[in-house]
């Protein structure tokens, strides 16, 4: 019983973080049919912002807010620098420009800050524990679960009930038709990047909250996680991204519990083997999503 509670909390908190990461990636992919390879750097930007404002006397929540806003700004910058100038011309060009922008941000951090990990300010609560069912549970896991529930709820509301959200879903299935109804392409794409940046910013703070430091390469793992979660869940479906995030967390946590010390080093190999099995069974991912239109 103790074990079950601990396991469930682990899966939910890891899965919540994975799901938010995946959602930020698939949101842009759905509309542009292009993977934003600079997505991980949005998390890095949030981390370094937190590091840089760390010395100020601001309350922590304000610092966190600044970090999230900076991640949104970086998301919008990705659109303006890497996507908009070449979007209509060629897929290959956008692959390269988004990689280039990712490298540019990483090298900026290497050059102007440091190649070594830097500490970020975290409130006391991140290192505290509470007793749940007789088990000491880190508060940061509880915070991650709460943040994931709130943000997923907010996101669902945005996509279901607001005209902007409905327009974004429409643009993801058939961009040209949405434009023929007067939905402006640039507004939709910029909104997607801003929301993607917002999710990356929040998840970045939670992610860095687990590690305690930020380094230039910190974005790679979240990008990979988000990408795999999307592939498992189905690249065309927002629900799929969330589902994929939780499944990936379930696999990772299960392996953490069951593999012996020696084998734990190879956890990723086990994870990816399972991912391959899932894809052999469902090549389009678990949730197919609506048939999608042409890339624009």
């Amino acid at each position, binding site marked *: 019983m103790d074990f079950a509670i601990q396991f469930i909390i682990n899966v939910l908190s890891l899965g919540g973080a994975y799901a938010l990461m995946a959602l930020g990636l698939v949101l842009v992919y759905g509309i542009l049919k292009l993977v934003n390879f600079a997505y991980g750097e949005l998390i890095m930007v949030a981390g370094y912002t937190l590091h840089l404002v760390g010395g100020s006397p601001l309350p922590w929540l304000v610092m966190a807010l600044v970090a999230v806003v900076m991640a949104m700004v970086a998301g919008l910058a990705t659109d303006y620098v890497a996507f908009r100038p070449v979007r209509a011309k060629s897929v290959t060009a956008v692959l390269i420009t988004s990689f280039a922008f990712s490298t540019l941000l990483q090298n900026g951090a290497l050059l102007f800050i440091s190649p070594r990990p830097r500490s970020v300010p975290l409130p006391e609560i991140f290192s505290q524990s509470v007793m749940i069912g007789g088990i000491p549970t880190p508060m940061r896991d509880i915070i991650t679960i709460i943040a994931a529930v709130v943000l997923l709820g907010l996101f669902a509301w945005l996509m279901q009930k607001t*005209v902007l959200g409905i*327009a974004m*879903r429409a643009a993801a*299935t058939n961009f040209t*038709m949405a*434009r*023929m*109804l007067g*939905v402006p392409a640039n507004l939709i794409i910029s909104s997607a990047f801003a929301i993607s940046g917002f999710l990356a910013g929040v998840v970045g703070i939670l992610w860095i909250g687990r590690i305690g430091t930020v380094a230039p390469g910190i974005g790679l793992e979240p990008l990979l996680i988000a990408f795999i979660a999307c592939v498992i869940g189905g690249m065309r479906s927002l629900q799929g991204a969330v589902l994929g995030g939780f499944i990936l967390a379930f696999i990772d946590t299960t392996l953490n519990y069951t593999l012996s010390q020696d084998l734990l080093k190879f956890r990723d190999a086990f994870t990816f083997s399972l991912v391959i099995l899932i894809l052999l069974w469902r090549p389009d991912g678990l949730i197919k999503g609506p048939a999608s239109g042409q890339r624009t």
Partner: protein
Amino acid sequence: MIEVKDLYVSYGAVQAVRGVSFTVADGELVTLLGANGAGKSSSILCVAGAIKAASGQVMLDGEDVTSANPEAMLRKGMATVPETRDVFPDLTVDQNLTLGAYVRRGDRKGVSEDRERMFDMFPRLAERREQAAGTLSGGEQQMLVIARALMSRPRVLLLDEPSLGLAPAIVDKIFEMIAELKAQKLTILLVEQNARKALQVADRAYVLRLGEIAGSGTGQEIAGSTDLDALYLGG
């Protein structure tokens, strides 16, 4: 109102439209007829701004709108019903209509009145308003796409093959509705393969063949002078 001059549209090396010119006056219903591949849909999509012209001009009320963005064309009062019957399958009927009124979203009262008007006009849609549009039948989807286009309160409606692949009873219904819209003084450009039906409602018609205009005249003239069956076969 719409004036197309010497329009060319190409897909790579293939020229789909080669020097097409036509006009549509205010309140007029003009139809473009022709076989598959005659360049009808390319012409209408180019007017709608969904594809770019290789050369030539599209004028709307004397303003040059050649290769404008599709969203700009909608704002100028031109709504499009594409041939591919593009409902947003995972959105509900209601949400599809909401998007149709995207440019008027500030006018809540007007939008909800129009929504009810559409449901009066298409009771089938009213029964299914909370259903995902992808679950509707072909005829219902066509009604939804037309209703959605009307939600923007357009001055001009571009209809691309509204009868394609529908049962005869539904085709009749769609054409009744087109006649009704025409009676309300809406300017309509209609692309059809069903030439007989189209000529019954059209003021004027143009016949396209292999990307060029092969003939034009009033509905009766074209009906009298053209072998309508040959139109289907590209004759």
